């Protein structure tokens, strides 16, 4: 109530607005189509789904619905991981991750999808698994593993097994989280072979579903190869064996439904803070919806990406009451800084309107220090072509000013959240808290682009470099044109948001109209934690 409402200058009756809206709706439709493929589509998937159902098994997302509280959303991560990779045979990388609520307590879910390559783990699957664990660790959440996996995808074992953030890293994380008091719970709904056996084995409590759940370090084929023994998989590692004989499991249940009833019961014994935990460090005030409809965003973002849009108009559609207390509005205007509330939580917002100049970088640095001193979470809305180049810019010390901003972001201890609402180019990506700067969550809009530089710029720059390195008389203009075409194609492909989300450079592509809600959910996770230890807390006037 205290902050002024942003006066919107958008003419929602204009032709441009209508054209933009139509174009953006197509982007969203594409997003939906591709997400639908991750849910139950893809080549030959139907057969696997039918087989899954025939065994009385439930689809991954339905499993989550059976466990989570009624009337609550599921904050799914990286639905389109592996998009365009592995011959498009592993939509979503065969794993579903996200945050859901049980008895009012948020939990990270890591759920194998056995209808994709039998739930086998591909390199991106491991990345998604590990990323979900990191989200849990940073946000103080317990993890629920709904295990139904054929284990590592052996043809790519070198990209899954040995490195730091590979399979071993996931077990390292699991053990460390448990030690930190973040409960690790497993329900075994399918195979847990070899390394996979350690997911339940490292869990605090385990439920096995009779008839479908199996745990063994070596499955029947390996046992046969190693020992010459022929043994039925259920006898080797079924629910009865592990619950009544080995003690690897604590509970045996007859059905999946029974497993989820038991799991909810176990969750109720974990003594965790709820999402509406009193005495969290972030104060929450009464929520006021934005004064302007979220759907306006479709019409604000220009279909022609060369025409900029004003990030202030986006802020007006994300924050409570569209109210925004601007910081230093008359200086360094290509970055907008100020305070607002999202779902009642106070945040400091940094948004770009294009190129970052020296003043803008200094203003942003000042503002980051302010939020760090005041213990206010930071929200970065990336919409930049990068830091300014050129004689004047270099003379003004853009390199050191940009570095101040990068350093301030890197050292800020308050929770940071990043949304790619437009371009994320060059060092602008760093200063605006890109993936490398560990924002708690990073989401991207389907219109966003991410690369060292825009395709146009890359083409010019790289062609010139090539031209300089080639002898003029030996290089035809056709060859130059071919080089230009290749470079442009590479940049266009690689800056596409689906290319990015496929590789987990973000936590998911989202429809802009869900952004406010998603940020509210993310902030609520931080709010129930203890206040993070503060950094130096110095505010320099730059």
């Amino acid at each position, binding site marked *: 109530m205290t902050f002024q409402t942003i006066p919107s200058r958008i003419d929602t009756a204009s032709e441009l607005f209508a054209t933009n809206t139509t174009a953006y709706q197509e982007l969203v439709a594409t997003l939906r189509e591709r997400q*639908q493929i991750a849910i139950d589509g893809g080549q030959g998937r139907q057969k696997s789904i039918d087989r899954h159902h025939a065994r009385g098994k439930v689809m991954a997302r339905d499993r989550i619905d059976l466990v989570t509280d*009624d009337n609550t959303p599921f904050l799914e991560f990286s639905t389109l991981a592996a998009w365009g990779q592995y011959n498009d045979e592993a939509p979503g990388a065969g794993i579903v991750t996200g945050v859901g609520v049980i008895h009012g307590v948020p939990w990270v879910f890591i759920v194998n999808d056995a209808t994709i390559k039998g739930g086998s783990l591909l390199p991106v699957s491991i990345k998604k698994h590990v990323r979900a664990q990191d989200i849990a660790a940073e946000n103080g959440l317990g993890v629920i593993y709904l295990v139904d996996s054929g284990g590592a995808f052996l043809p790519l074992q070198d990209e899954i097994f040995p490195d730091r953030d590979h399979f071993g890293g996931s077990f390292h994380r699991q053990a460390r989280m448990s030690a930190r008091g973040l409960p690790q719970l497993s329900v075994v709904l399918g195979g847990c072979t070899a390394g996979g056996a350690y997911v339940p084995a490292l869990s605090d409590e385990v439920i096995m579903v009779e008839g479908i759940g199996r745990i063994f370090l070596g499955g029947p084929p390996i046992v046969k190869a190693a020992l010459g023994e022929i043994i039925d998989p259920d006898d080797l590692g079924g629910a009865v064996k592990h619950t009544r004989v080995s003690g690897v499991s604590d509970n045996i249940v007859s059905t999946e439904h029974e497993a989820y009833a038991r799991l909810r019961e176990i969750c*109720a014994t974990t003594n965790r803070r709820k999402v509406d935990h009193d005495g969290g460090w972030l104060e929450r005030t009464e929520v006021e919806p934005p004064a302007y409809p979220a759907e306006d965003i479709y019409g604000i973002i220009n279909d022609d990406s060369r025409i900029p849009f004003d990030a202030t108009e986006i802020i007006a559609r994300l924050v409570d009451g569209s109210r925004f207390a601007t910081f230093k509005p008359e200086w360094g205007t290509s970055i907008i800084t100020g305070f607002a509330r999202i779902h009642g939580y106070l945040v400091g917002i940094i948004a770009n309107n294009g190129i970052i100049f020296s003043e803008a970088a200094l203003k942003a640095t000042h503002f980051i220090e302010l939020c760090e001193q005041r213990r206010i979470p930071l929200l970065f809305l990336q919409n930049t072509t990068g830091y300014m180049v050129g004689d004047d810019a270099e003379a003004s010390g853009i390199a050191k000013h940009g570095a101040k901003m990068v350093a301030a972001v890197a050292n800020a201890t308050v929770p940071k959240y990043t949304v790619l609402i437009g371009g994320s180019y060059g060092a602008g990506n760093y200063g605006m808290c890109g993936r490398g700067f560990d924002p708690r969550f990073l989401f991207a809009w389907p219109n966003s682009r991410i690369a060292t530089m825009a395709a146009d710029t890359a083409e010019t720059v790289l062609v010139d470099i090539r031209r300089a390195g080639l002898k003029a008389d030996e290089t035809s203009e056709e060859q130059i044109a071919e080089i230009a075409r290749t470079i442009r194609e590479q940049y266009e492909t690689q800056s596409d948001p689906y290319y990015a989300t496929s590789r987990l450079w973000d936590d998911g592509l989202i429809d802009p109209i869900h952004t406010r809600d998603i940020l509210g959910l993310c902030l609520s996770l931080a709010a129930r934690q203890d206040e993070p230890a503060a950094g130096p807390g110095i505010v320099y006037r730059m």
Partner: protein
Amino acid sequence: MKILIANRGEIALRIARTAQRLGHVVVGITTDVDSASQHAVTLNAITVPSYLDGSAIIAVAKESGCDAIHPGYGFLSENADFARDVVAAGLIWIGPNAEVINSMGSKINARAIAESAGVPLIPGYADSQADSDLRSAADDIGYPVLIKASAGGGGRGIRIVESSDRFATALDEARTEAERAFGDGSVIVERYVQQPRHVEVQLIGDRHGRVKHLGTRECSVQRRYQKLFEEAPAPNLSDETRNGLHDAAVRLGSTVGYDSAGTVEFVVDGTTGEFFFLEMNTRLQVEHPVTEAITGLDLVELMITVASGQPLPSTLDDVTFTGHACEARIAAEDASQGFMPSIGTIDILDVPADVRWDSGVAEGSTITPHFDSMVAKLIVSGEDRPAALSAMRSALDELLIAGVNTTAGFHRWLLDRQELVDATFSTRLLDSIELPAAPDPAVELAAALWREHRRGEASNVWTEIGAISMTPHHHQRSLGLRSDDGEIHEVVGSSETLEAASMRSIVDGARRRVALNIGGHTHAFTVVPRTERWAADPTGRASGGNALVSPFPAVIAEVRVAVGDELKGGDVAVVIEAMKMLHSVTASGAATVSEVLVAVGDQVAGGQELIKLNSEND
């Protein structure tokens, strides 16, 4: 004055209300099985062995210093001996004098008196109990005829005879039933009216010889001679018939020296307008509130006035009848199951405003099989009959009563029947039409209401945002709703829309209860959590294992099973002994014994199989 109310339930509370308004002190009674009922608690009632134990009740009245006893209806209200004993004990009897009760108590007697008072009787015969005399009387009257118990009531001891050759059998049955019900096998034979309406006239008399009528009541909506729905005044009567009824009733009252509130019941032939004396009820009737609604009088007050010897107030000289009133008896019965009594605890009760609700129950009241199934009377009025019926429809659409089945939905259905709207009914209405089946439980609506309620309670971002989906996957959460008959309904998926926004409903978050009114029926559910709904019955689960093993080295002390025995979870199969302690080896779930591998005295190793099983899922 201090008045003992020798009754229970709604009528005890209704009498108490008037008595207390007039400044009298009230003493209630109850019985051991009825001590938790609303009247017992409210009136701080004194326990008696039975509501029919006259001497105990009189003793309580004397001990507690009462001046008078009001008997209500039923129980001892028409027991002349009790009335006499009350007076003999020096107490005021708030009711007609014992002689009147006695003379009207026997149908044969009452008919004779009515005849002498010039009140038309149904052509009939009551002179002799000889089979042949009754048979020839029936032949004279013409079939169909009715045989009914002389001392009867409540529909018992009644037979309709279509033709002469069926007479003997019917007579036998009627006599047997009358003997069993009333200890008196005397019967009378009379003309069976084809389109009978039950119309009655309310009387009030004093001990100074004045008797006034307070208009008619229509009580034709009956089931097995039990009234369900009453109105005042009786509709569709010519002035001639109406005045004739009034005059006949007053004549009869005057003839017998009637000195309290009472009712003369008539059969009116719906086609001819003829009327015949049926019987006189020497007490306050269940349906008296409809008369009060159109006269503005308080019949209990008048009864107390005249019982204390005062003359009827002069205001009764110009009683006017204003508008129309009706009463629905809300009984704990399931109309779709032949009005089968429904027992249980009323845990939600929400009564619309602007109605008269005479009730003996409150939220938390338990309906037991010990007493009458009527839980309340819903009375409304309007400026005319359509207005009154419309008010009743609205009231029934608003009423919520959960925990037991009630007849509220039946009444709501009835109010849309043309026979009722046009008042073309007879007492056989419910024999001739098909009653509606039980409505399908409104599970989807209840689920939507529950979810809406939970959204309203939202206290954090997650519940405020609700189950929206940020991908094309729509949340398939399941809600379990247990209806009061115990059946659990599962609603899967989101039930977002509430079509019937005007529908009356209550959601009690703490008790996880949802009640909603559809067509007068209260649909009530308890939301059952998943942990309860999906949890396995520990004795019902398949054992999963194919053998019972010894947990440690031991000696077999006892083998309790044999091949073919069916076990359930927890059943002891073998008892073993180790370290001088006995230990039971039990089945973990349902299974059949396929082989017994050990015998008493055997030494077994830890992990050794004792019993082979075939579990149920094999």
